[in-house]
């Protein structure tokens, strides 16, 4: 229900011997009712960001505002933020049900209403059967859902969910994903969700913020993130299996543009495959990083020739790893491919599926024939 604005947020953990710059000049705006996923490798500063928003860590510099109210100077109890913790953090002497209810108690809701709310949330999260048990006597996944329930049950301007489903099996996760999305939408909850699961981020989030080394790399819709990664990091980070990245030398001739890849192979395209803008952007460059997603490869007799290392049919797609010029390239086909290790094979990709990055800065230059 609230709009969250983080601006120039910095977090430095200082101790006697070291100082860790966990979050660097982080800007993010979450619109009212929007669900944003925070995606990034372990230790990149996701939890630190949430903790600053919730008020458990001081902001080193920068500001946080929610609903137009500057909140980073307020105490956690005044911020109107609900949070599900990475480590659950249930209160041991209370039952699961009491744990979920204790924020409602603080809000002085009538007991009957508390019970209804707790029951509804518990049913949604499939923990209705354990409301009378104590945290130490239920499983990790159940504790995690209780912790999620404790956050969702109350009215807040902002919901922070730190890896809320990390402990659950994929089937249950898929079911809950749908219900939680429905719940968040229904109640128009502004939400930041931390996750390591890209499927979860894609399914739940309106926008995804990709973070690395404390720096926001890109903030975009799931589709855009995949189609137009802003830099090498997001290119390689988003997508399963990850994008193949080649160091390539560009030769732009009158009629064709050629990418010479280490190992003596090359990809050539007619100039007309690239828009004039891209041609201009490429013209001055000699070296680029070329990104091609595994799904974009056509497996057959393409120009990227090499020996098959492994070929696995996963039931709905084939993963083929190919040794091209001494490095392993992964390609995925939705058809069944029957190749033996050692077989000679050729990969090709359309110009529309190329991602061209600056070799030095890693910034995107062009995606699929149009400028980044």
């Amino acid at each position, binding site marked *: 229900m609230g709009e969250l604005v983080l601006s120039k947020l910095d977090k430095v953990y200082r101790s006697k011997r070291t100082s860790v710059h966990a979050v660097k000049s982080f800007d993010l705006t979450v619109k009212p009712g929007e669900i944003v996923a925070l995606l990034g490798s372990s230790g990149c500063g996701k939890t630190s960001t949430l903790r600053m928003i*919730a*008020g*458990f860590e001081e902001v080193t510099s920068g500001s946080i505002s929610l609903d137009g109210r500057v909140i980073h100077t307020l*105490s*956690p*109890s005044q*911020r109107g*933020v*609900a*949070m599900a*913790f990475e*480590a*659950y*953090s*249930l*209160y*041991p*002497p209370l039952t699961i049900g009491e744990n979920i209810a*204790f*924020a409602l108690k*603080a*809000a002085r809701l009538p007991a009957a209403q508390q019970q209804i709310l707790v029951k509804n949330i518990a049913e949604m999260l499939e923990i209705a059967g354990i409301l009378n048990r104590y*945290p*130490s006597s239920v499983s990790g996944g159940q*504790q995690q859902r209780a*912790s999620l329930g*404790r956050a969702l049950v*109350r009215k807040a301007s902002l919901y922070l969910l730190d890896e809320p489903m990390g402990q659950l099996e994929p089937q249950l996760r898929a079911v809950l994903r749908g219900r939680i999305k429905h719940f968040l939408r229904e109640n128009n909850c502004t939400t930041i969700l931390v996750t390591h699961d890209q499927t979860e981020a894609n399914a739940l989030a309106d926008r995804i913020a990709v973070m690395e080394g404390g720096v926001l790399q890109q903030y975009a819709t799931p589709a855009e993130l995949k189609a137009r990664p802003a830099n090498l990091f997001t290119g390689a980070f988003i997508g399963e299996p990850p994008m193949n990245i080649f160091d390539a030398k560009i030769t732009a001739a009158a009629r064709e543009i050629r990418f010479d890849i280490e190992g003596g192979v090359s990809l050539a395209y007619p100039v007309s495959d690239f828009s004039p803008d891209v041609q201009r952007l490429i013209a001055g460059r000699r070296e680029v990083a070329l990104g091609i997603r595994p799904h974009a490869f056509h497996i057959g007799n393409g120009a990227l020739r090499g020996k098959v290392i492994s070929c696995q049919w996963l039931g709905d797609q084939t993963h083929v790893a190919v040794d091209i010029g001494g490095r392993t390239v992964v390609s995925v086909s939705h058809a069944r491919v029957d190749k033996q290790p050692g077989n000679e094979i050729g990969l090709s990709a359309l110009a529309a599926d190329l991602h061209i990055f600056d070799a030095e800065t890693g910034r995107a230059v062009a995606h699929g024939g149009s400028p980044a």
Partner: protein
Amino acid sequence: MDHTSTFERILRGILLALVVLFFMFPIFWILLMSFQTNESILRMPPSVFFTPTFDNYIALVTGEMRTAAGSLQLNFMQNLWNSVLLSTTSVAVALVLGVPAAYAFARFKFRLGEDIAFTLLSFRFAPPLLVLLPLSLYFKSLGLTNTYIGLIWVYQLICLPLILWIVRGYFEDLSPDIEHAHRIAGYSWFQTFRKIAVPLALPGIAAAGLLAFIFSWNNFVFALVLASADKQPVTVGALAFVTASGIQYGQIAAAIVMSVIPTFVLAMFAQRYLVEGLSLGAVKG
């Protein structure tokens, strides 16, 4: 669960009995002594058979000690009361001051925090005699000599560091996120401290309080120097049993039994509580 053979169980029983006997023997012997006259205690060879008498206890309670050389006044009941008063109040004061301080040291990093905590700990390894002489001079000029307040104040040297360091450890072991979850639900810092942190650290607080009580109870030298007979605890009062006409072993034994009872009761109570607190446990994650 019980796969042990009868033989093993019997053996274990015997061994346990031996260990208990070994450790409890002095106390058992003292208990026997407290029901005997000095003559029967000192007879050779010693024997566990005697005609029990309550004279020792009667002497302690009435405050009149009859010895071969005549009758002496005893302050024992007053001393016992002093011990109870001094120890209980000292521990209570130390808990009120120490628990919030321990919380602060565990949760907040502030300038000189570690140094202050360490200074407080260092009170524990400074020999009391080192501070006693200057302290007695100060106490004279402050008018604190031979007052309960003065003694309770000095007893903080014993209680406060104990409570601070033990309870701090317990607070540090609690996940701060449990408190965070409570705070974010709309509770203030103090409510969270009272409703979450203190209850979760209660086993630790009980243990620290019990230890502090025992240390205060057993303290001898502070009260010996800083107070006179009417304010002194049993530890010092027991000196009165060493009389001109000999040492009153029977009465010493009775005094020991009576002065052990409060600590013993407290320990029994706190122990049950400690176990309860620990079995709630699982303060992990």
